[in-house]
């Protein structure tokens, strides 16, 4: 067993080291031999995408767009609660939203089809009838809870909703979509619905409840779908729409409350400017290691 002496002499005619585990100890090499080929298969930062500041900023616009939509909903809630918005104008808003959403969906679809239109119309009518029938229940469901608790819970639910919301896609899918939504986005949608139910219990009449529930559900369930369709249709239109929405929201909030305006503005700046910059900065710390030891990924979907 003169392995060690052979290794130290490093006599030239010795066999080349092979990266194999069979055949016992390789003659002339110790078991702790480290070849030049060591870590040859290692790949660093293979799947890291070089991000560009402008691109990230434009992508962040969809987040601020949705923030504005939620801010607008809260605005409508507060106006209704302070009776500066009566039920008829609320219903008017509902109908105009419904019609405009419909139109946007239809026009951004590749081909206009009567069956799709019928499908939507049928579903929406079911939805509205159900909501109308259930309005008295919503009105009294959480009535016994104190207003402070209602506000606190609503705010936390909305924050939860914003955190878990799926900003890249819409949870409510266009008919025929295959992929199921993730658990987090389902939780997000549910949080928003519960928040609307809580708010509804503070309203004076059934019609109020119906109008506000219809409004909130329309926005929380279908606004992501509408904005997603716009984005898919034309990115330019999406940016224009988002910016006008931001301006609209900011001006509304400005008339309502100064501090809230400053808060919302700083939030939008944070999301649109600071976060992208931050992301780009911390990119250089990215250190990803791949190699032959990685678990193989299956190249097909497992349908359980």
């Amino acid at each position, binding site marked *: *067993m003169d392995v060690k002496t052979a290794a130290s002499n490093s006599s030239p005619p010795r066999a080349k080291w092979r*990266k*194999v*585990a*069979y*055949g*016992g*100890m390789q003659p002339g090499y*110790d*078991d*702790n031999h*480290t070849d030049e080929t*060591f*870590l040859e*298969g*290692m790949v660093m930062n293979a799947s890291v995408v070089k991000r560009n500041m402008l691109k990230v900023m434009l992508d962040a616009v969809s987040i601020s767009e949705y923030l504005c939509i939620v801010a607008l909903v809260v605005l409508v809630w507060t106006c209704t609660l302070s009776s500066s918005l009566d039920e008829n104008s609320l219903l008017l808003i509902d109908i105009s939203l419904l019609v405009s959403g419909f139109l946007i969906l239809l026009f951004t679809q590749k081909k206009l089809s009567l069956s799709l239109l019928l499908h939507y119309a049928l579903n929406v009518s079911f939805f509205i009838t159900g909501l109308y029938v259930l309005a008295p229940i919503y009105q009294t469901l959480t009535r016994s809870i104190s207003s402070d608790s209602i506000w606190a819970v609503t705010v936390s639910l909305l924050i939860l909703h914003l955190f878990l919301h799926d900003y890249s896609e819409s949870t409510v899918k266009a008919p025929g979509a295959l992929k199921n939504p993730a658990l987090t986005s389902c939780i997000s949608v549910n949080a928003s619905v519960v928040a609307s139910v809580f708010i509804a219990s503070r309203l004076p009449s059934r019609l109020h409840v119906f109008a506000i529930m219809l409004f909130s559900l329309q926005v929380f369930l279908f606004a992501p779908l509408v904005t997603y369709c716009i984005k898919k249709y034309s990115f330019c239109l999406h940016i224009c729409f988002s910016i006008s929405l931001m301006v609209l929201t900011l001006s509304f909030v400005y008339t309502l409350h100064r501090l809230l305006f400053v808060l919302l503005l700083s939030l939008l700046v944070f999301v649109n400017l600071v976060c992208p910059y931050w992301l780009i900065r911390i990119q250089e710390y990215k250190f*990803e*290691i791949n*190699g*032959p*030891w*990685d*678990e*193989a*990924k*299956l*190249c*097909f979907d*497992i349908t*359980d």
Partner: protein
Amino acid sequence: MGNRENEKHSILMVSDFFYPNVGGVENHIYCLSQCLLNLGHKVVVVTHAYGKRSGVRYMTGGLKVYYVPWRPFFNQNTFPTLHGTLPIIRTILTRERITVVHGHQTFSTLCHEALMHARIMGYKVVFTDHSLNGFSDAGSIHMNKVLQFTLADVSQAICVSHTSKENTVLRSGLAPEKVFVIPNAVDTAKFKPMSEEERRSSKPSRSEIVIVVISRLVYRKGADLLVEVIPEVCRLHPNVHFIIGGDGPKRVRLEEMREKHSLQDRVDLLGAVQHTEVRSVLIKGHIFLNSSLTEAFCIAILEAASCGLLTVSTRVGGVPEVVPDDMIVLAEPDPSDMVRAIQKAITMLPKIDPQVMHNRMRELYSWHDVAKRTEIVYDRALKCSDQNLLERLSRHLSCGAWAGKIFCLVMIFSFLLWHILELWQPADDIEEAPDFILTPNHDELEGCCRKPNNAENQKNSSDTNIYDNSGNNNIS
């Protein structure tokens, strides 16, 4: 084998995974221990209690096993308490006059704790890593940090394949020279191809080709790949049959696949296969199919090759290193490439002689060789210079901004605890256990790697519990 400075070691093998649990690590520890005993070393195994199996037991060849009464809480792992095991480990180390502590497997908490305590008490420690781990998910990151902690202070480390060595070096930041590659082996005496008698008694079916799969049916073992591959192969080759041994959550999917393609008479699902029955399943087949998505070594391939089967396997982890290229057909882990590889294997089949393949495997792998190579690692570990606590703390401190400080605190606490224990129960007061001396059976080295099951039978027949509390039952 007696020309080196032939000192005999007292080795303590520590792992959560040992018989009655069955698997690659368990098998490795058992076979390695048996061969080391045959080389004249003293080997003691420490594991946690399995059900009622608690206390001290002896296995074949006088292998002493301590089943520490410490309950497993998840995946056969003991609950990590950091210092809870110090007293008992210290007592065992003293009682058995241990010189080297050898821990096995990254996922074993008992192993990590025992290695830490042993280092605190100044013992030389060796660690064997049996698995691969990624770098991306939270679980892996945590495991890698724990591994870094243990390996920061280890004397020598062993990996089972070169890919595993690369992985371990990256995960733990250990110097590559300290990491040895010593593969697993296979008991070729146990995994023999079908003998002439067996061939005569079994029905002659030369025309049909049987493909055997033996693995747990879980995601990581690629059960989903099987679901895609089997119908396609059955469609292309009407004479192919599949035998699938193993159980697991993905079995339902395989059964569904069998129903859907009406392959009931061509795909046999055997369910869980005992390790003693593996050979009897393997020899029914001509091709062994391994669809694993990650594998550090894959003993199953060795067992199949030793039974004379041609292997088709996914090219993952250490698999390409395991057997020579002409004994295996490798494929990417994607169904179409797997089907292509199986077709290639079917065309290669007429040229394969199981007996020749078995004889080659006998040349390539033996546990005895593994034990001898491990012995060299122990010798190296004992030659490592002793370091005091401060030197070792500095090494731990460099493990990370936060982790380093936490590691140091853990070490210091362990050190204090050890000194308190020394005051409470001085090491001199701990009674040393008498050695159980069996004359090593040199003629039958190949048979030294009998499986734990045999050992168990043998032991049950004599006496199950040999507690060695008193020195009276010293069997010599």
